[in-house]
């Protein structure tokens, strides 16, 4: 496993995409949060917005780039055929996928921590309240799980354009669908299975949501685990 990790780390480190995507995650997260705090002019308690969710709004934008990073890391190899070199050098496919997941999680945790802490500081400087530790830590974990979800989907789908569509669709269609549906029970059900809506419950402080913060993050974790499991299984079974 150590060698696989090292190889995947070298691979990621020497891929130019990572060098703009990771700073992009940090920048977009901080900028999005700062903009949301600036937009929401009313007093945090007054207009019914959860201050923690507003202060960490940028996570909802940064997640797109995190997912993209995961997709690029896998589909870039399939697109060029380099995946065959990878699997020739590291034939224990499950281990290789785990190594990729490990490296991706690592860099996402770093970028996520910078982005989320940056959001917290930006919000605090512009007069917002300090964010609770659970929301901060939870948001970083949320981003890491989004990376794993993207990785799993990309391994299943293999084509970069299609994988991008599937992942971004998963991330952004659920929230829209929930708003468009009138039936309360159906809305609630969709909310509970939506990776983004349920996952971001971990940021909630004043909102009373259908799922608790960690249970909500658990929904996203289940998505990520399911996607990785499917990806791993298909990677083992399919010809490269």
């Amino acid at each position, binding site marked *: 496993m150590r060698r696989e990790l090292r190889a995947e780390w070298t691979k990621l480190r020497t891929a130019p995409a990572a060098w703009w995507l990771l700073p992009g995650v940090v920048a977009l997260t901080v900028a999005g949060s700062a903009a*949301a705090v600036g*937009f*929401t*002019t009313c007093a945090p308690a007054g*207009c*019914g*917005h*959860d201050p923690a*969710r*507003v202060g960490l*709004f940028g996570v909802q934008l940064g997640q*797109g780039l995190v997912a*993209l990073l995961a*997709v*690029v890391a896998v*589909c870039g190899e399939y*697109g060029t055929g380099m995946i065959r070199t990878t699997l020739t050098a590291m034939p224990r496919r499950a281990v290789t996928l785990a190594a990729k997941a490990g490296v991706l999680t690592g860099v996402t945790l770093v970028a996520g921590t910078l982005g989320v802490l940056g959001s917290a500081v930006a919000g605090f400087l512009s007069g917002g309240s300090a964010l609770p530790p659970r929301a901060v830590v939870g948001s970083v974990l949320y981003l890491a799980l989004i990376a794993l979800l993207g990785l799993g989907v990309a391994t299943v789908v293999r*084509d*970069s*354009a*299609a*994988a*991008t*569509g*599937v992942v*971004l*669709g998963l991330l*952004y*269609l659920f*929230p*829209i*669908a*929930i*708003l*468009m*549906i*009138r*039936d309360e*029970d*159906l*809305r*609630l059900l969709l*909310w509970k299975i939506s990776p983004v*809506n349920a996952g971001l419950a971990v940021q909630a402080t004043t*909102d*009373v*949501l*259908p799922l608790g913060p960690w249970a909500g993050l658990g929904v996203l974790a289940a998505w990520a685990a399911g996607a990785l499991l499917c990806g791993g299984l298909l990677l083992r079974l399919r010809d490269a």
Partner: protein
Amino acid sequence: MTRLLRAEWTKLRTVRGWMAGLVLAALLIVGFGALFAAAGHSSCSRGPVEVPCPVPPLGPDGLAVEDRFYFVHQPLDGDGTITARVASMSGQIRLPDATPGVRNVVSGLVPWAKAGVMIKESTEPGSPYAAVLLTGAHGVRMQYDYTEDLAGAGPSGAPRWLRLTRAGETITGEESPDGARWTRVGTARLPGLPARVRVGLFAASPGDIRVTPNTLGGSAASSRFAEATALMDGVSVRGAATGGAWSRDDVGAEVNPDGSVHHPGGLVRNGEEFAVTGTGDIAPNTTQSTIERSLIGSLVALIVVIVVAVLFVSTEYRRGLIHTTLLAGPRRGRVPVAKAAVVGGVTFVLGLAATAVTPALARRIGRGNGVYTLPVSTFTELRVVVGVAALLAVAAVFALALGTLFRRGSMAVVTAIVTLVVPYALAIASIVPDEAARWLLRLTPAAGFAIQQSLPEYAHVTGLYAPAAGYFPLPPWAGFAVLCAYAALALGLAAYRIERRDA
């Protein structure tokens, strides 16, 4: 160009995955429409008993309306006039309980609480009418046939004289500060109005609408009971009146299981003074499900279409096939145009097949579950059905142009989704203030979603007219034109760059 189109059509048709993707997109529209209609459920209770929800009455033009008010009336044969003075208006609003279980009622009027004089075909809900009335906060108005609303001379409160005059099918509304100097508010034509109509005094008050952020995302509007009481005097009916005795009706009221009226209105008569109390509204119905909600699957279809359209061009770059394509037709700029025409055309045809059947299907399934879909005019329905298919087609063209510009599949898909879907998601999530959300839906390609809006905003109906509730800042075709402009711009750039750049 014909040859180029044929070549591109052959290319699209012969990759099984692409055609399968586009067919899948169409099936997703139908599937999600049917699924959500089947999963949705609506029921109403009358006391402890669950009953099917009442079907809203239809107005003179076939649209669903709300027609609930307290009416003190007498028959009028042929032409005639009714005059009355609204001496004062008051009312009460039930607020959220401060102490659980204890009704928290405050006095006050909602802005569109209304009382005045009315001429109506019958007391049947949905029948044609014309009224001149005083409102809680919008002064004197003349309203008729639910959707029409004309403002009076200026902001004026009680006391106010109001007069309606019928001459054949034409009804004129007037107002006066003193009963002597009259100003015309407006004229209504009610085609086919029979000789015998009802004429009288009325009062109504729509619920108190409060908009709160929904914790699940977006905003939620909740309506709370409100009623209005108007003190009216100086009542006179001139013309071929029969008898002159007043009848009273709680028009459109719900009846409790024990036979009593739910939230009854009433009349307290003190000599020539009429105190009329009523609740409800006389307005177009905007609270039920709309046709475009049955097309919710078009969002998923949109993603599929974007991916296929991008792949249609990006795989050519990846495999170097683009060289062959450009050699086969040396006028390079035409290549993306031909590709766009083919992928857009196929998407439109398949999309239209899906959007044409889905609303009817969803309506049928929904009716079985007690979900009522608001009827719209044939023209509006056609616009929504064709418009959503066209939205998919233009999105495909946009994505294809981005694919040609970026050459890299994932970049093009990301850009298409970030400019088309994400602004929509942001606009309808409550996190962005409504004004910012409206600008997002004016300036970004997401403006195109306006094509699916089937209900217009009514100035005289209080409601949540936010993007989250399905109301777009631009008119349907204008919004669609914004998306088309983006697609045309991207396609133009793609054609220009493919002409100029080395392949």
